[in-house]
C-alpha cells in the first residue's frame, strides 16, 4: 500500500521529489573522530559579528575553554575544541571564500582531552533573561545550516509572543543523516532540549516535524514521549525542501510567514534537531559548543558514516581518515542541494556544517550538460516553493536587469533552495544567477 502514502502525509505546494541517497549512512551509528594534530578555528562561524579572540600565540588552552568572546548581541563565544597550544592567529580560507582570521591550535598528542570543569546551571531556577544569556554562553548557533545565533532567535522582539516551537527534523537534503541518527540515538537529550527551549520561549507546545522516510526515528521519539505532554510528533511527506522553516510552518500549522519576515511574526520559532539535542546536553552543564555530528558520504567515500567531529578539523584530516576512491574533486560542505564546494583542503569544519560530500569524477561528469536558452517550459515555475518565476528571473539576470528582478519579480524572496536549477532541462544555472543578482542588489543597497 506504499502508494497510498501519497495521500497520508501533508506537504507544501510545488517543490521537487528527490532520490534521497541516504541508505549508505542512515544505519551507521555515530562514531567519534580522533583529534587532528592541527585545528583551525575561524572567529566567524556564525551569522553576525565575528567573535573577539582572547588568546595569544603560544598560549595553552584546555578543551572547552573560551578562546574568543562574543562581540555584542549578534555574536557568540568560541570554545577550544581541544586542549593544546595556540600556534598562530592568521588568515585562513573558509567555505564562504574570503580568508578570515582563525585561531590555529596545535593539539596535544596523547593527552586525555578531558573537558575543563564548568559550573552546572540550575535550569529550573533561572529567569528568561538568564536562560537566554546561558544559551549565548554555550556558543550555540543553528546547526541546521544557516548558523544563526540561537539566543537571538530566543529573544523575541517586543509585542510578539511565541506559542509553538517547531522542531525541524525533516532533513530533506539527500545524503545527510545526522539528524536522523541523533533522533534515533539521543531522543531523551533532544526532548530535554526541547523542554528547556519551550520554557525559555514560553511556548505552549512543540511540534517535531519529521519526513516519512525516517519512520524508525519517529518511533524512537514517540516511545520516549511519555512525560512530555505538550510535545507532538508530526509526520510530513518526503519532499524537497520540506525542511525550510517557512514551508514547515505552513505544513504543520497552516501559517504563512510574511514575505521578508521571520517566524516569530506568526508566533513560531524553528530549531533544528541537532541544535536542540546539543542544547539539551550543553545547557544544564554550562558547557560550550566544541563538536558536532556530520555525515561524511558520497560516491567517493570509502568509510561513509556519521562522525562526531571536533570543530576546526581540517577537511584534509577528515578525508584522510575516511578514505576515498577515484580522484575526489568535488567536495561539498552541507547537502547536495544547498551546500557549497570548497577550494582548499585547509577549510575547517565549522558549527553550521552538517555534512561533507565527496563526488568523484564520474558522478560529476554525468551532471554537466550543455547550457541552452530558456525554453519557457515552466518546470522551474512549477518547482519553486516560494512561488517565484525563475524563468523570468534567469532571463533578466542574463541581461543584468537586477533592479527589475528585485522590484517586479521578488528576487529577494528566493532562498536558493535549488529546485529550479535541478529541474531545468536547459541546464541554466538559475540559482547561481540569483545569488549574483542578490549580491549585486545588496551591494547597491549598501552603497546608497
Amino acid at each position: 500500500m506504499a502508494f497510498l502514502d501519497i495521500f497520508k502525509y501533508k506537504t507544501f505546494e510545488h517543490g521537487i521529489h528527490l532520490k534521497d541517497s541516504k541508505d549508505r549512512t542512515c544505519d551507521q551509528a555515530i562514531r567519534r573522530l580522533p583529534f587532528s594534530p592541527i585545528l583551525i578555528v575561524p572567529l566567524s562561524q556564525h551569522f553576525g559579528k565575528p567573535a573577539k579572540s582572547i588568546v595569544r600565540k603560544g598560549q595553552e588552552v584546555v578543551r572547552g575553554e573560551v578562546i574568543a568572546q562574543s562581540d555584542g548581541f549578534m555574536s557568540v563565544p568560541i570554545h577550544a575544541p581541544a586542549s593544546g597550544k595556540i600556534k598562530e592567529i592568521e588568515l585562513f580560507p573558509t567555505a564562504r571564500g574570503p580568508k578570515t582570521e582563525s585561531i590555529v591550535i596545535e593539539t596535544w598528542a596523547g593527552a586525555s582531552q578531558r573537558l575543563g570543569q564548568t559550573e552546572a546551571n540550575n535550569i529550573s531556577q533561572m529567569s528568561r533573561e538568564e536562560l537566554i544569556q546561558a544559551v549565548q554562553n554555550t556558543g550555540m548557533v543553528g546547526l541546521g545550516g544557516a548558523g544563526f545565533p540561537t539566543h537571538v532567535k530566543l529573544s523575541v522582539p517586543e509585542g510578539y509572543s511565541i506559542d509553538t516551537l517547531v522542531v525541524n527534523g525533516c532533513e530533506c537534503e539527500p545524503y545527510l543523516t545526522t539528524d536522523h541518527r541523533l533522533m534515533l540515538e539521543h531522543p531523551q537529550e533532544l526532548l530535554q532540549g526541547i523542554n528547556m527551549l519551550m520554557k525559555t520561549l514560553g511556548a505552549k507546545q512543540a511540534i517535531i516535524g519529521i519526513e516519512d522516510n525516517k519512520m524508525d526515528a519517529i518511533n524512537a521519539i514517540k516511545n520516549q514521549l511519555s512525560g512530555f505532554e505538550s510535545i507532538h510528533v508530526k509526520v510530513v511527506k518526503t519532499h524537497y525542501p520540506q525542511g525550510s522553516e517557512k514551508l514547515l510552518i505552513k505544513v504543520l500549522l497552516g501559517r504563512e510567514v510574511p514575505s521578508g519576515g521571520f517566524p516569530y511574526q506568526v508566533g513560531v520559532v524553528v530549531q533544528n534537531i541537532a541544535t536542540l539535542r546539543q542544547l539539551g546536553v550543553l545547557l544544564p552543564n554550562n558547557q560550550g559548543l566544541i563538536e558536532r555530528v556530520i555525515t561524511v558520504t558520497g560516491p567517493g567515500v570509502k568509510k561513509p558514516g556519521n562522525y562526531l567531529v571536533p570543530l576546526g578539523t581540517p577537511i584534509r584530516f577528515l578525508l584522510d581518515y575516511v578514505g576515498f576512491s577515484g580522484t575526489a574533486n568535488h567536495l561539498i560542505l552541507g547537502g547536495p542541494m544547498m551546500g557549497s564546494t570548497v577550494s582548499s583542503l585547509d577549510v575547517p569544519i565549522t558549527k553550521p556544517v552538517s555534512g561533507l560530500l565527496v563526488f568523484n569524477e564520474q558522478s560529476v561528469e554525468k551532471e554537466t550538460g550543455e547550457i541552452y536558452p530558456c525554453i519557457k517550459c515552466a518546470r522551474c515555475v512549477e518547482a519553486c516553493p516560494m512561488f517565484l518565476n525563475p524563468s523570468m528571473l534567469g532571463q533578466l539576470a542574463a541581461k543584468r536587469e537586477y533592479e527589475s528582478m528585485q522590484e517586479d519579480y521578488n528576487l529577494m524572496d528566493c532562498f536558493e533552495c535549488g529546485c529550479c536549477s535541478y529541474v531545468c532541462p536547459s541546464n541554466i544555472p538559475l540559482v547561481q544567477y540569483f545569488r549574483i543578482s542578490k549580491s549585486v542588489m545588496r551591494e547597491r543597497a549598501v552603497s546608497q
Partner: protein
Amino acid sequence: MIELRTSPHVKGTLSLPQIMRHVVYALLPICAFAVYQFGLSALALLIVVTLSCVLTELLFNRLASKNTTIHDNSAYITGILLALTLPPGFPLWMGAVAGFVAIALGKSLFGGIGFNPFNPALMGRAFVQAAFPVAITSWTPAAMNDRFSQFIPSSLSFPFALPSVNDAISEATPLALHKFEATTTSFNHLFFGFSSGSLGETSSLLIMLCGAYLILRGMMGWRIPAAILLSSAVLSGLFYLVDNSQYPSPIFMLTSGGLMLGALFMATDPVSAPVTLKGMWVFGFLIGILTIIIRLFGGLPEGIMYAILLANASVPLIEAVTQPRKFGWLSNRDEK
C-alpha cells in the same frame, strides 16, 4: 584538482534534447498513420518539409557563425508538425517554402530556440496559407486506392508554377462541409480518422494517445490542452444548446479539424506559451474561445491556427497579469 561548482550539485535527468526527442517519437505514429492514409504524397511532404526546416536551421547557424543547433532536435519537430498541418496534395515546393519561412522567419530571426514569440510551425503555415490560399484549401480524400503507387498530381507541380488542380479528386474537410454545406461528419470517422483533412489532423484518437504519452512521461504540461479542450467544449456546447440545428455539437467540434493536434502539440510548444501556471489556463481558454468563434462566425472553416498565433501574441500580456504570487504575500499585505 578541486572543482568549484555552485549548488545544486545534483541535477534532474531530463534535458532539452531529450524532451524534444520524445516529442518526435510521439509524432511518429501520427506520421505513420498519415502515410497510411494519404500514401506517397504524404511521405514525400513530410520528408521535404522536415528537410527544409533542418537545412534552413543549418543555413542560419552558418550565417550567424554559431555552432549548429540541430542536435537539440527542435527543428525536426517544427518540420514534422508543419507537414502534419498541410493538405496531402500540397505541392512539395510550397512545402519547402513553408519550412524555410517557419525556421527563418519564425525562429532564426529571433535568435534561435527559446526566443521565438510565435510558434514557428504555425508561422510557416500561416505564411503559405496567405501566400497560396488555393493550394492550401484543396483537400484530397483519404485512403484512395492508388495512394501507394501514385503521387497526388498537385504534389509534384513545378516549383513556382501553379499547381495542377484536379477537381475530380478534391473533397471538402469535415469542417468545410459543415460550414459551407451544413453536413456533419460522423463521430466514428472523425475519431478514428477516416476523413479528409491535413496529414496529421484526421484521427483524434491517435493524437490523444500520443499526447497522453508525452503528458504522462512529464515531457509536456497538461494545463494548456486541458484548458483548450475544456473551453472549446463549453463554448460550443452553449451554442449547441441554444440552437442545435445551426451549431454543431461539442463532440464534433473537438474531434474535427486541427483542434486536437493544435491543442496537444502546437499550443503546448513551451517557447511560445506562457511560463506562468495561471497564464497557461488563460492562454488555453483564449485559444479555445477564439477557435470556436472563428469556426462559427469567421470567414474560414478552421480557426485553431490563427487562435494559437493570436494567443502567442498575447503571451507577454498574459504573463504580465498572471505572475505567481510569492509565498507570504498575503500576510505581508495584512500587516501594512
